[in-house]
């Protein structure tokens, strides 16, 4: 006999419920979760889009202009708007949840999660500003 409790290991009369394929519609939190997970598709899309752009840049000014025109076509704009929303969802959820994975200590004191999140947001803003400056301002 091992340390395991003496159960009736299996019982035919237990009622076992199956989760429906649509379980994530049942609760707001689950829906947000699935949307957050779907952001992955749009992150991938961003890489594809970026590669197309870089290839155009590599092929000279003409291709670059054509790329910009293509990117202004309605369906690409729509895709990018949606993608931006998803990517923002990703960024926000990521910054909010990341403090959970790390315990940051300053002089022996645990830094509260809200502070960690706030500093991440600050970093985000600075970095975004730098990218804009690099691409637009420094020209």
């Amino acid at each position, binding site marked *: 006999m091992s*340390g*395991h*409790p003496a*159960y009736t*290991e299996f*019982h035919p*009369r*237990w*009622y*076992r*419920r199956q*989760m429906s394929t649509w*379980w*994530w519609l*049942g*609760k707001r*939190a*689950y829906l947000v*979760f699935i949307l957050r*997970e779907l952001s992955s598709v749009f992150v991938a899309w961003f890489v594809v889009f970026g590669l197309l752009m870089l290839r155009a840049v590599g092929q000279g000014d003409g291709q670059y202009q054509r790329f910009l025109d293509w990117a202004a076509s309605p369906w690409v704009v729509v895709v990018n708007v949606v993608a931006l929303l998803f990517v923002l969802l990703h960024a926000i959820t990521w910054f909010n*949840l990341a403090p*959970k*994975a*790390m*315990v940051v200590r300053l002089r*022996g004191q*645990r830094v509260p999660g809200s502070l960690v999140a706030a500093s991440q947001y600050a970093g985000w803003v600075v970095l975004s500003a730098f990218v804009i400056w690099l691409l637009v301002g420094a020209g």
Partner: protein
Amino acid sequence: MADSITLQVTRYRPEEESEPTIQEYDVPLGRQWSVLDGLNYVKDQIDGTLSFRWSCRMGICGSCGMTVNGEPKLTCGAFLTDYAPGPVRVEPLANFPVIRDLVVEIGDFIRKLPSVQPWIVREEERPVSEGEYLQTPEELDDYQQYSMCINCMLCYAACPVYGLDPEFMGPAAIALAQRYNLDSRDEGSRERLDVLIEHEGIWGCTFVGECTAVCPKGVDPAGAIQRYKLTAATETLKSFLLPRGAR
């Protein structure tokens, strides 16, 4: 305010029916009454056949977890007035087999628990005569939150990953592993890592986060699992970078 409220209670009588049904009961809407008080009123005054678990009625024994209006709750800590005017749906906890009425089978957790070695592991045990292991309040604080788990299983009921894949170790068990890992007296984190690094351990969790949202004791299993992933990943990286044997 009305002076009574309707409970819509899920019934399942395994000897008579093959599927759960819903039964309604009207109970008084007492000012301080919890959902559990309502159920006890039913059991004592209306229908003695209703089965559910409870004991401490003060949110510490962890036995009265049920689904109340779709949310996993300790029924002794969920108050009827907060659901007025009703009706209040009371169902068994999700993701577990139902034994009867509101009673679910949690043996799965009980069987998994020992596998994460939720006890102090030491290479060498110090005799009691040498006194206590010193542990500063800060060191206590490192794991205290994870030691607050009452095994109420609300987090398992809220976690879709567990619902989809019962092999998943689940939030509370991992939080308890972390409770011991972070205890300054413990030396067993290596052994626990070997168990939890399997797919059914921490990696199954996709950070839905509902476990933490429903936990009545502020344990934050989602955070525990994330922290554990970070540790496990860096440990693995180290073992790749460092030569063999040099742990």
